[in-house]
């Protein structure tokens, strides 16, 4: 099928199989370097990208659901202010994910921050449900970081995000 969509701010027309998973499209047809995984259903959680600003596991999204979609991979996400909140939290903690899961874990944290910012209680009072955040984080199975450490990083990044939004 002919697929028109935007990937990392570039308008593209791709000729792909209608059921081709987005992860494979990004690897084979677009050459995205931060996209490494295609685990075929093992739920590794290492293929996260944003489609119309919403995080998805790209290996379970088919081409036919992507007409006119705006896809953003870590390659352009890491240049945004949103990403800086998370990278600042990595720096402060003195730890960060390994190169293989850096992109996915960072986008997973971004997806958690988006959910938290969408809840008025979290946004205004800074209240977070740590258990729910840990459950979210467990979507990525890469064992390079302890989940409590990732939790602390997520909460720290959320603080940066709240402060920044508060001051805007």
């Amino acid at each position: 099928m002919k697929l028109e969509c935007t990937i990392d701010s570039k308008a593209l027309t791709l000729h792909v199989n209608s059921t081709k998973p987005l992860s494979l499209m990004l690897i084979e047809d677009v050459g995205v370097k931060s996209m490494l995984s295609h685990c075929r259903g093992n739920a590794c959680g290492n293929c996260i990208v944003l489609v119309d600003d919403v995080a998805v596991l790209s290996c379970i999204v088919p081409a036919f659901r992507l007409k006119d979609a705006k896809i953003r991979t870590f390659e352009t996400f890491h240049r945004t202010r949103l990403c800086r909140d998370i990278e600042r939290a990595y720096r402060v903690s003195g730890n960060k994910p390994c190169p293989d899961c850096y992109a996915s874990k960072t986008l997973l944290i971004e997806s958690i921050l988006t959910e938290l910012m969408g809840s008025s209680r979290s946004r205004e009072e800074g209240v977070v449900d740590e258990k729910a955040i840990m459950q979210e984080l467990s979507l990525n199975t890469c064992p390079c970081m302890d989940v409590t450490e990732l939790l602390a990083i997520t909460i720290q990044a959320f603080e940066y995000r709240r402060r920044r939004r508060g001051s805007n």
Partner: protein
Amino acid sequence: MEATRSPMIHQPRTLGELSLLFQRIEHPLLWAGGTYLMSRSDFYPFPSKAQIVDLGRIEELKRISRTDRHIDIGAMVTTSSLLSAGKLVLPSILKSALGSIISHITRRQITIGGSVCEPESRMAFSTALAVLDAQAEIRKWDEGRFTAAWIPVNRLYDKRGALLLGKTPFVLTKIRLGLEWGDFQRFVLIDNPIRTPDTAILVAFQATRNQTALTKVRFSASFPKRAFHLSPELENQLSLLNLPIHPDRVNTISYEMAHDLMNRHESITEFQAERTRRVFESFLHELNIQTLS
């Protein structure tokens, strides 16, 4: 080259258009969230002769409605929208089951219809629906038209948890829940049903406490890719009990339950049976504690 071998994708907007497609296509493959379909190891490349019917544009299937007697949930409602729309009206057991699915990211994609119609294995949603006496509206394609029937969800599966609906093409349109729920509801998931199906268990239990007696007990347990367990005998046995249940009796009943589980489902491991027994036993202890406090 790749483009010419693509499966055909149909995207109806109404149930009327869907019925026209069923008329034309012999074996339509219905596509809901696609999480099951795409996570099969042989998914891609998909057979080019396949005719995929994407249900994602049919608004009628995305509705949740409530009367004073029941809640209807459209097949294409996602687990995340059901959780957020249903916060005030859903039974707690269903909220726990939906909440047990890891991450907003997957919940936004997994649909109610896809969870009930996944052909091989019972997971969180079906396990919880089984104890809520939920009904599924199934439209079978028979002699050139759809015939609708309400079928109890717990009769849709065999003891392995595989879907029983046979070879006739069908579409599930909605799930109906009554509004009378027990005042004791529990859903427990241990381990990840996708990543570690060999050790995972999903257990749902509900009951009503009438003064000092238990009534309307419902119990179900699922073991991904292995078994779907219901036991009307156990439910009847428990429904006759007075509260508090003597600790010795709790112990005996839980071992009998586990024994029955192993007898009926050779595929589950002793470890899974013991896990289920402990969870089940904890429900009975909890009922006792609530009665005494």
